[in-house]
């Protein structure tokens, strides 16, 4: 089978999978106890979005490190593609999380450490693109944004892991953590849908990412030929 046919097959498989996930989230998974109405179902979309935002961050880091080593423009394109997708998914994750918080606890924002860390990720992506916009020269843009991405990656764990530890020790009575804590008491059908959704969203990310990288490769090849 040619590459193109494999790709088309995978695309359709992804479409079917995600339609099944959506239907499963609404009809197959039972209503969760302790949640207001059906609001828990948003978790099936919210958690994978946050996961993809972090995944995109890791892909960005790897591509940035590779760029710093190889100075290949394609690696810079990879980093930018991952960051673009990461921005989209972190916005989605923040919005869905906020909607969920509003239904559950009647306020759009609670300053829960996990909520704050997804916003920080969003700010990092936004800053990354602000930096890219500010540099007209391509090579300099690539190395500066790669440097910033690595710097940001080093500082991120502190918010995700260290601050919650301090936070909890000073404030033992804060609100319950976000939906990540649910996993332990999850109904098996809910777990199935959640895992299926995770796989589906990861597949979606892979597809969109490879599309962008392929496009970048074509553009670079074309630009290379125009110069020659």
């Amino acid at each position, binding site marked *: 089978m040619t590459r193109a046919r494999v790709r088309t097959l995978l695309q359709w498989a992804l479409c079917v999978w995600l339609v099944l996930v959506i239907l499963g989230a609404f009809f197959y998974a039972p209503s969760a106890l302790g949640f207001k109405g059906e609001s828990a179902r948003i978790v099936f979309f919210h958690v994978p979005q946050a996961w993809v935002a972090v995944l995109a961050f890791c892909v960005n880091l790897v591509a940035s490190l590779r760029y*710093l080593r190889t100075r290949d423009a394609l690696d810079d394109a990879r980093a930018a593609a991952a960051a673009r997708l990461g921005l989209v998914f972190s916005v989605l994750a923040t919005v869905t999380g906020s909607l969920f918080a509003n239904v559950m606890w009647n306020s759009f924002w609670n300053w829960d450490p996990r909520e*704050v860390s997804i916003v*920080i*990720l969003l*700010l*990092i992506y*936004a*800053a990354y693109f*602000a*930096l890219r916009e*500010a*540099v007209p020269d391509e*090579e*300099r843009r690539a*190395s*500066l944004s*790669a*440097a*910033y991405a*690595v*710097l*940001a990656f*080093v*500082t991120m764990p*502190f*918010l995700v892991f*260290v*601050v919650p*530890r*301090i*936070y909890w*020790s*000073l404030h033992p009575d804060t609100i319950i953590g976000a939906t990540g804590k649910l996993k332990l008491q999850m109904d098996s059908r809910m777990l199935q849908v959640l895992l299926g959704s995770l796989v589906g969203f990861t597949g979606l990310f892979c597809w969109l990412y490879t599309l962008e990288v392929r496009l970048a490769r074509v553009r670079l090849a074309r630009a290379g030929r125009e110069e020659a």
Partner: protein
Amino acid sequence: MRASTLLSESVAVLGKELTSELRSRVALNAVGLFGLTTLIAVAYQIGPYRIQEQDRPHLLAALLWVILFFAATSGLSRVFVKEEDARTAKTLRLAARPLAVLAGKFLFNLILLSALYAFIVPLYCALMGYSVQGIASLALLLACGAVALSATSTMVAAIIARASGSTTLFAILSVPLVLPLLVMLIQGTRAAAGSTAIAAVLPALRGIVSLGGATLIISVYLFPVVWHD
């Protein structure tokens, strides 16, 4: 071949920064004035009596760091941007090795921050009626916080100086990186204000020291890349 050591070159860069700064005092004035203005505005409107007793620990710690960060942002990026503006950057690249430049400018920012803290913090405590019980803990927290903030800011300043150099870009890039630090500093200050034991600030201190350390280590790798572009 270089006859000078890394240490001597770093000291030389630091000396150059201090000399040029004392000559024109631009960063000092900006940082000091921003800090003082914000402090006076806050102290005048809020003062020691307008905050309720139960809110005092949180608000006073948070307000202090808002003032300090706001003042710091106005001056910390100068250290690289002025080189690009005055077109002395190329000479500096030839004159000193990159790590020496990083070390010298990092130390300069550290001194600038320490001066800001030494100026604003006692004034704030006096004007706002902030009674800090653990003065030693607070001093330790301020010192470690200054190191961490200087590390992050110097690296970000190096990046934006090679971009557009604007303070806005500096603020945009540093906000996500400095937010965890800010949170830890505010919590640490609250803990230090509340008790004399150093143990109270230890959790925050651990976080701040590791953040500063990690940033310094990664800067050693990243700075030459950014500097020699």
